[in-house]
């Protein structure tokens, strides 16, 4: 199970990195989304993976053995929510910059750093 998740995370990073290197805003954001999902998978794996064992503490006991740690899942949830907000902003920014510059090529946007240096 861990190996499967590790391979999945690797594939997501590889695909994401490929898209991000295209130099265009929209593929860049899609690639970034894939990489942030790879990060979520990584954290998911760090909390131990078990089949069919809910992390419920039995009556009378203080701790519970052999179940997955639920905290990393809470961390992922936070990261997903934050990541979603950032993605929505970034998509809006990509759209506005396309409207302004007429291109999605990031290297072609030179309003802040003009080639002649002025």
């Amino acid at each position, binding site marked *: 199970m861990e190996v499967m998740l590790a391979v999945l995370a690797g594939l997501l990073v590889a695909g994401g990195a490929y898209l991000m290197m295209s130099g265009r805003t929209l593929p860049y954001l899609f690639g970034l989304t894939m990489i942030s999902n790879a990060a979520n998978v990584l954290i998911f794996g760090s909390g131990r993976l078990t089949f069919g064992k809910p992390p419920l503490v039995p009556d009378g006991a203080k701790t519970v053995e052999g179940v997955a740690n639920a905290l990393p899942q809470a961390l992922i949830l936070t990261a997903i929510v934050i990541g979603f907000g950032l993605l929505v902003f970034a998509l809006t920014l*990509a759209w506005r910059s396309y409207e302004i510059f007429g291109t999605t090529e990031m290297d072609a946007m030179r309003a802040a750093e003009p080639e002649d240096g002025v």
Partner: protein
Amino acid sequence: MLLFWPLVIPFGTAVLTLLAWRSVEAQRAISLAGAVALLGVAVAILLRVAGSGPFAQQAGGWPAPFGISMVADWLSAIMVFLVGLTAVAIILFGMGETEAAEEDQGRHALTHALLAGLCGAFLTGDIFNLYVWFEVMLIASFGLLVVSGRREAFDGAVKYVGLNLIGTVAFISGVGLLYGATGALNMADLHGRLASRGGEAPILAAAAFLIFAFGSKAALFPVFFWLPASYHTPSATTSALFAALLTKVGVYSLLRVFTLVFPIDGTPIQTVLLWGALLSMVVGALGALAMTGMRRVLGFSIISSVGLMVLGLGIATPLALVGAVFYLLQDVVVKANLFLGAGAVRRLTGSEHFGRAGGLWRRWPWLSLLFLLPALSLAGMPPLSGFWAKLLLVQATLASGHYLLTFAVLATGLLTLFAMARLWSELFWAAPPEDAPARPAGLPAAMLVPLVALTALVVIIGLNPGPFIDTAIVIGEGLLDPAAYVAAVLEPAP
């Protein structure tokens, strides 16, 4: 409750400015009042730390390490104080602006959200919570960059957003790995758990992610490209706030995490930090020489300053840490002063580009001094604040036998002096262009007061560095031996 006020006040102020959406005047008044209140709370925290040492407060009353701890030691308390000081300075400066194009689009609310993020990042004792505060800062800074709606601002924002989001992903990955390896997120708790495990592979992998994340926040080589692309595009007040504090959060996080959490002595972490620092110093200093706009020159000088601070952390001797901390503290004031100075130049001449502005020295000699002094401090000229910071770092490199780094610090100083001299001769000394537009008579008082106060602070620290260096020594000792910090968090208050 004291440690939660630096969060409550800015968030509350942000909401109040939104409620006053229709009146820019009301927003300005609320915004300034909020900043002054934040400064007041920061002073209260500082006094308590000075009186009885580091202290912690637990969110929701959950005991550490299970709940989220807010901790104030000397470093955190002073950083929060500097946030308050910078906030008052930039909001006051912004009151002198005539065009309200940004302010009626919610700049004040975004500014205070950013302040809340900064205070949270400086005060939190939990590494996942630090990630959350980074996100608060990030989204507020995105908004501040584009709120003007100007063409170049959108260009800068695309680069800034794109590169900072990668740092975010690295941060969360590092935190996840760290939790997987240790089962802890509270930094004081992590300190105990990692004490003898510094060289293990999962720990080093987590450290690598975190160096990348904090490095890209701090604009450390080679992940600094977002800074020169964006810092000159927003309004003067926003870029002063960014320059004074945003990169400092990255440096602060490096200082905190790689002293308190990870033992770095003799690990590859140290090598990475030193090379990053060295190359940042050189690239920043050379980049500043190639630029032809005031804030673009200053933007590259931020990168070389960050290199100098990280250098102190990388050497990791007590003296080097004192140098890094002292540099960090005085640089907040210097950078705020310089970027507000750029705003003043723009206000007076209508431009900040070489060849389109000039003649400031002849017409406004006293105002020019308000730029000259912090610029010389940045270059490390005695007797200004930057000189003492560089002196400490040079001594630290000599004492630890890193002679290449000594040379790099001195060469960076020389190149920065050259860059500042070039700025001075192009913008202040040179004759104004023939087609220069009609100029205002001078600066409004709202702009003058923060500039004078910040410059005075640079001179005071420079002429009387003793107490400030003593404070930096206390902070450096606290970083090297965090026993008091750990005890404040993990042992419940009597």
